[in-house]
């Protein structure tokens, strides 16, 4: 049987082919499984859906421990397109209170991969965000009828007091810019856009957690990977304790009703802001939930600019409140002594220049001049200082003056822990050189000495001036957050800043302010049993005078410094003094006396008409 054996060697060829196939395949597997890493990454991005677990945002308490801002559940309506069938569109729209057009547009937007890159018809997509609990209750009753729609819980801000909108700020959806600047954020996240929410965003937001879910080929979630062993728990945001006394804040806003203006109160020894009211304001709750966009639009269209935080963003001529800073400068520079008197004949009259003043005894020394708010005294002071030989030139003298102003916290931001603080304006020599072509002297710029002219301050800076006098020569950068959970405050909020003026001169000015309350322009601020020091301000401007007040109390152990600024309120004594007095009384005694309560109601009712002008 030769034939059978002739080809026997061919078995080796066949075995070789089998082995070759197996070896080539093992080689290929070696390449796929060991040499090449990218498949592992593909597999992970295929199968793992890393779902973000949002931390709860830090809450805020006031200085007395009252809960001001917390989180509240809200509900997002989700839609899974694949499961939407037989939808009664009319009933659906009614239950959510939306129009048919809105419904159609949303459905189209959800499906639009350009607007919604993560779209899959198998997974839940956001249809409508932030339903309130009430809206949700109504929708939930009918939810069973709407195949494909579901509800996802999330948290929105809950404000327990209808005040301090400017202070808290609000949360808005992150913009492309935010996402580019900080990779913490992804599309749809919320970020603090104003106020404390914005300034303390990093502390409040916490750290996101991660849940690794398994996703099948259709995008459906099939459970947690390794029973959650790879999950990262979110770290809740840090809670903040504000230095604000919410009742004081509420009173300040109440007193400012129907007026445009600000009230700022500071605890002088710590720089803690006790209240920071700006009118007109808004209820912070307006800027949460679904109505946020619409409300924000309305507020920003309002001509009185309720979104503007005038307490730190408004810059005004400080008027006579500024005279205290002038007295301090002249004393320190040796231009005057407390005993120095200047004449006042219904004003400052010199070389044809006249700055008016009201009737009071003349000539007067410093303390009575402060008490009666004599314009002439401070004009003479500035005239002498600028003209003084010891500086060599007006420019040098004025530079010295400007340095004093800056050391008192004017002309630059005080560094409050809120976004958008304005600098105010303190002119320097170069400014006047440019303005007057180098030909100027003390008389040319005389109005800065009485807080008019080019000088502007924010109400916060005025209050800080009061705090500095109360401290007799230093201030701590004002701040609205006095404590961050597990974190120290920035050192600028604990380190005193000294001005260039000695303590004894402050004592003199404090006496002048005390005298103003006892026998001068601020008599309405005279509280029983409390030694109040004060200074009125009546700032001229294009319209009716602005009414201002700056004060602190008690005189020898100051607990509160306050600034009031009411636009077009007239004399300082009309609005500034009574509001300031009520704020001090409320804070120092914890309540308002019956008489004061009446006064407060009266003030609250008073309306200043501003017309229809853009403010």
């Amino acid at each position, binding site marked *: 049987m030769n034939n059978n054996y002739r080809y026997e060697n*061919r*078995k080796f060829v066949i075995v070789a082919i089998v082995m070759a196939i197996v070896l080539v395949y*093992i080689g290929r*597997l070696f390449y796929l499984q060991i040499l090449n890493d990218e*498949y592992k990454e593909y*597999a992970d991005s295929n199968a793992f859906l890393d779902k973000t677990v949002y931390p709860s945002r830090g809450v805020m308490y006031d200085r007395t421990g009252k809960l001001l801002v917390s989180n509240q559940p809200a509900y997002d309506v989700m839609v899974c397109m694949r499961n939407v069938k037989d939808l009664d569109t009319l009933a659906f729209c009614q239950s959510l209170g939306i129009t048919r057009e809105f419904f159609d547009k949303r459905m189209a937007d959800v499906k639009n991969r350009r607007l919604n890159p993560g779209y899959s018809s198998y997974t839940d997509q956001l249809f409508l965000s932030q339903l309130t609990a009430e809206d949700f209750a109504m929708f939930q009753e009918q939810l069973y009828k709407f195949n494909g729609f579901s509800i996802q819980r999330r948290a929105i801000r809950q404000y327990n007091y209808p005040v301090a909108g400017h202070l808290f700020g609000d949360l808005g959806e992150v913009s492309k810019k935010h996402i580019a600047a900080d990779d913490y954020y992804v599309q749809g996240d919320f970020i603090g856009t104003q106020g404390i929410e914005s300034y303390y965003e990093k502390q409040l937001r916490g750290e996101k957690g991660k849940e690794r879910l398994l996703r099948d080929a259709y995008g459906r979630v*099939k459970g947690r990977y390794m029973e959650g062993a790879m999950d990262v728990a979110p770290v809740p945001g840090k809670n903040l304790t504000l230095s604000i006394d919410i009742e004081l804040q509420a009173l300040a806003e109440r007193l400012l009703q129907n007026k445009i203006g600000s009230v700022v109160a500071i605890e002088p020894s710590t720089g803690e802001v006790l209240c920071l009211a700006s009118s007109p304001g808004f209820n912070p709750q307006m800027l949460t939930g679904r109505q946020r966009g619409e409300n924000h639009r309305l507020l920003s269209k309002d001509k009185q600019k309720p979104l503007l935080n005038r307490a730190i963003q408004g810059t005004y001529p400080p008027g006579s409140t500024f005279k205290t800073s002038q007295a301090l400068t002249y004393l320190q520079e040796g231009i005057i002594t407390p005993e120095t008197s200047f004449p006042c004949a219904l004003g400052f009259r010199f070389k044809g220049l006249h700055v008016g003043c009201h009737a009071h005894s003349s000539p007067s020394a410093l303390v009575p001049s402060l008490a009666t708010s004599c314009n002439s005294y401070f004009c003479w002071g500035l005239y002498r200082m600028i003209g003084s030989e010891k500086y060599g030139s007006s420019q040098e003298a004025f530079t010295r003056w400007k340095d004093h102003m800056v050391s008192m916290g004017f002309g630059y931001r005080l560094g409050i822990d809120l976004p958008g603080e304005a600098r105010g304006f303190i002119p320097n020599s170069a400014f006047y050189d440019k303005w007057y072509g180098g030909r100027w002297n003390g008389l040319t710029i005389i109005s800065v000495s009485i807080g008019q002219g080019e000088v502007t301050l924010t109400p916060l800076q005025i209050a800080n001036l009061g705090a500095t006098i109360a401290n007799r020569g230093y201030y701590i950068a004002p701040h609205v957050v006095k404590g961050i959970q597990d974190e120290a405050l920035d050192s600028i909020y604990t380190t005193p800043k000294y001005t260039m003026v000695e303590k004894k001169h402050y004592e003199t000015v404090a006496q002048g302010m005390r005298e103003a309350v006892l026998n001068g322009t601020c008599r309405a601020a005279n509280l029983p049993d409390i030694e109040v020091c004060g200074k009125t301000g009546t700032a001229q401007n294009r319209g009716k005078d602005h009414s201002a007040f700056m004060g602190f109390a008690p005189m020898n152990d100051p607990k509160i410094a306050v600034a009031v600024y009411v636009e077009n309120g007239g004399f300082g004594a009309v609005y500034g003094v009574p509001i300031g007095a009520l704020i001090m009384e409320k804070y120092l005694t914890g309540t308002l006396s019956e008489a004061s309560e009446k006064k407060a109601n009266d003030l609250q009712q008073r309306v200043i008409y501003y017309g229809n002008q853009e403010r």
Partner: protein
Amino acid sequence: MAIRNVNLWRSIDWLTIILYFVLVLCGWLSICGASYDFGETDFLSFSSRAGKQLVWIGCALVLALVLLNIEKKYYEMFAYPVYAAFLLLLLVTIFVAPDIKGSHSWLVLGPIRIQPAEFSKFATALCMSRLLSTYGFSMEKRSDFIKMLAIIVVPMLLIVMQNETGSALVYLSFFFVLYREGMTGSLLALGVCAVVYFVIGVGQGENFFASMPVNVGQFIVFLLIPLFTALMLGVYGKQMRHAWLVAIVNLLGVLLAYLFSRFVIPFDICLVQLVLCGCTALYLLMVFLAERYASYLLIALFALGSVGFYYSCNMLIDKLQPHQQMRILVLLGIKDDPAGVGYNINQSKIAIGSGGLWGKGFLNGTQTKLNYVPEQDTDFIFCTIGEEQGFMGCTFILLLYAVFIIRIIMLAERQGSVRFTRVYGYSLAAILTFHLFVNVGMVIGLAPVIGIPLPFFSYGGSSLWGFTILLAILLRLDAERETRF
């Protein structure tokens, strides 16, 4: 009968049986892995695929036991009738079978679905064995050769008509059997060359020399052509020096061209290769004219034909219908299109690639569980092994197959003068090899996506029973072997 049985258990090849059980067990575990859904899956419940597969395995064992007890003479006796019966069944199936994903290959009998194409393999193997072992059969005789071809081609055609081209292609593996039985090797070599040129030439998308304007598929094919030519010269030529000359000159030429392209001016090396191939053919023509030896002319024609074949394949691809074209192109990596037709291969490569050295562990695969891999418990079952058992697991399975197939070849070879059993044994070995080649090749992205199962692994009764029957008959035939003198 009692004596027979004692003899059977004594002379049966236990090693093959053990290998069979190991493969079936690994297969069942893979199905557990592939059908596991991270939930509380009860693998023993009949409602799960693993549970069902257990039942199929049980049935297969019963079937095997029955077949092992049928004497060899009956297999020889009934080879033709059985073959005829299956041809009839295949024919009937075309008309009776419902349309399942475009194919008409499943017979539905109540809850059970059977694919006759899986069973006709053993009938064809028996028939082939019977024909080749007929006294006086000779492949040199034209009538015998035609009969032989007909046995292979008729079931193929019927299966193609069922729209199961993949299963039909399996019958090509019988040519290996014929090769072993004396069919001229050059035919097989040409066939292998054609397949290699096609698979490599029409599509290596991965570019090895990224900086050079080279079609890598073309480069490899044009490198293989002179090498194959040299190999043929070595086998069929009169003098070895021609073979060496062709191999060395071509390799040197390509190397120089590569270096020039790499370090001087990047250009398409394939042009140089084309010229080299032309020169090789010309040289062989001259040798033919000088030595007057026909083989040189044929080899020269082989070289030229290879080049022509490469270009006509590329042309042919353009003539195919878009989806067919796509299927071929994608497999070959030309179109990188994860969401489209390439999706399956892509996901399959991801699943296997993510397994790493040791794999993710039994039941821990994410890609297969989450349905990223299509047909994960049938045609793409190898993915589950790749993902969960890693490179080590895959290598183990592949080597297990190699040992199994080689063992079967050994069984076939130890039959002495009994051509019937040898042909049958080789048929089984060839069918298994073809399935392994195409199925694993497809899953790892080296072969076309042809839907044929991985023997003993893919879920499904028909496939398991078909292979068990094939094996059981071989074991019975082998148990009755003659001792070789």
